[in-house]
């Protein structure tokens, strides 16, 4: 019996740890095209800004593979998988057969097909190697263009600013962080970033990269040209499914999985940023590329692969992210839907924002900026679809806590724990 995992990030660790809860003996093989011990991708911006040193980017201790009896094959690409023969073929000619397979290939950067991409100093911002490359060329006063004002684009912009670059963010939408914030929230964050010297060009995009050998300037959709020394593409991630394109594996943007994280092919599971899994707010499958989901899905896959029948209840987007001195937590819907009630509190001078969407008594989404101390309690109410009608106004308080819940609810909750 052999478990094979393609991918060596969060979902992979979840899977390893899930398997080892049940099966301490059978072999686990982890294959990755990256040469590194398992590291955390969200930490690359921390590494680039020098907030953390090399050794802190690793997600699990040095002895992890040994401890969990894992055979890592790192720095080798998987060429294809033969689901009939249950074999994985590597680029170095090696063949590995599996009994149970997890696909945890994650996401890859979406890059628009524009002229000049082959110039030097054009980067993406997903992997450790991306920031290592940026680190090699970066120097004080460099003019950096970040294409994409989403979560990772702005983390890139923050890190580049901290390294002394003069940063301009180009975003196609009319606001930054469109995947997690509405207009008002986005405005607060943009102001904070502008106070730290980051410039924004909204409703525009980069259509060409100009320069002899290296980037010298970029041309925008508005035909304006901006001088630049480096360009970081951070428009978004798409599921990394290239090697499965012409197989019978069912893909709808992401790999489709059921509640056991099984794909349509027997003994083949998938988890993390590569899957389209159940969204419990929308009630349908979709790609939600966030770290906690990757771990949880990986763990559920691992348990099921090892024979322990366990269900994934579904997830919804949640994010905790900060830039300089502003921090936000968001979850669920960003824009209101028909018939939902909007609760809002905005204190512009303090940059405090709390907004909540409620429908039929249930919380469907929230955005909290600079007021987020016990947000997990709100996420828990969402996950358990608790009717909050009787205490909904309290959800806007900075110090929302257990005393705001009905006595029975809080007693039951604390004593069942």
């Amino acid at each position: 019996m052999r478990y094979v995992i393609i991918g060596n990030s969060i979902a992979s660790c979840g899977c390893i740890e899930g398997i080892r809860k049940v099966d301490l003996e059978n072999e686990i093989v982890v294959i990755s095209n990256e040469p590194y011990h398992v590291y955390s991708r969200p930490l690359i911006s921390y590494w680039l800004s020098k907030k953390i040193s090399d050794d802190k980017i690793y997600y699990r201790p040095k002895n992890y593979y040994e401890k969990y009896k894992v055979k890592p094959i790192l720095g080798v690409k998987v060429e294809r998988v033969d689901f009939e023969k249950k074999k994985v073929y590597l680029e170095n000619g090696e063949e590995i057969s599996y009994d149970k397979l997890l696909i945890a290939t994650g996401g890859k950067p979406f890059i628009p097909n524009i002229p000049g991409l082959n110039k030097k100093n054009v980067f993406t911002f997903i992997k450790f190697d991306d920031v290592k490359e940026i680190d090699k060329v970066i120097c004080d006063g460099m003019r950096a263009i970040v294409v994409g004002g989403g979560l990772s684009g702005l983390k890139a912009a923050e890190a580049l600013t901290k390294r002394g670059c003069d940063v301009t963010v180009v975003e196609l939408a009319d606001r930054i962080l469109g995947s997690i914030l509405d207009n008002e929230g986005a405005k607060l964050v943009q102001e904070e970033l502008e106070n730290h010297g980051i410039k924004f060009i909204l409703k525009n995009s980069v259509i060409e990269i100009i320069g002899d050998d290296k980037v010298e300037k970029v041309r925008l959709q508005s035909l304006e040209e901006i001088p630049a020394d480096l360009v970081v593409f951070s428009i978004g991630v798409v599921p990394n499914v290239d090697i499965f394109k012409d197989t019978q594996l069912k893909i709808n943007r992401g790999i489709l999985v059921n509640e056991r994280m099984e794909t349509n092919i027997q003994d083949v599971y998938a988890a993390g940023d590569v899957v389209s899994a159940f969204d419990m707010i929308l009630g349908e499958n979709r790609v939600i590329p966030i770290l906690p989901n990757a771990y949880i899905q990986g763990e559920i896959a691992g348990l099921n692969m090892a024979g322990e029948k366990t269900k994934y209840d579904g997830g919804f987007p949640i994010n905790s992210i900060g830039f300089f001195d502003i921090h936000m937590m968001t979850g669920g819907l960003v824009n209101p839907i028909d018939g939902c009630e909007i609760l809002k509190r905005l204190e512009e001078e303090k940059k405090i924002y709390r907004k909540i969407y409620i429908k039929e008594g249930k919380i469907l989404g929230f955005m909290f900026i600079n007021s987020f101390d016990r947000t997990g309690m709100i996420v828990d109410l969402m996950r358990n679809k608790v009717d909050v009608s009787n205490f909904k106004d309290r959800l806007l308080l900075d110090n929302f806590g257990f005393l705001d819940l009905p006595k029975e609810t809080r007693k039951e909750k604390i004593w069942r724990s």
Partner: protein
Amino acid sequence: MIIETKDKTKRRIYPKEEVCIGCHLCEVYCVLAHSGTKDLIKAFKKKDKPTPKVIVEEKEGYYITFALQCRHCDDPLCTKACITGAMHRDDKTGIVVCDEDKCVGCWSCILVCPYGAIRRGENKKVASKCDLCLDAGEPACVQNCPNSALEIVEA
């Protein structure tokens, strides 16, 4: 096999809201127990105000108060949401702990903790949570509650 299969901790501290008087001594002794000194004055006389790892639930207009700590969940969400691996279950004790050297203060644990039991620690740099007074035997909050409003239960 090298994985230590020490059981998850079954120890939980439970509050009795009927008898809690809201004196905050649990917080005081929690800070002392984690300060590295035995001197109360020294424990508090720091540049950044120390953050207790226990939270006293109290609110204007409410008669009730009670103290709450990390539940050390059997299936914790904080360890799964942690982006650094700092939040983990300790192999030897079965307790959920945060490696404060690894933590970068992204607050993903705060985003998912159903009990709101994780706080931003001193200087708001790293996550701070109850460790059941790992090194001291009995938790300081339980030991020092003047009205026995906290009890430790071994399920």
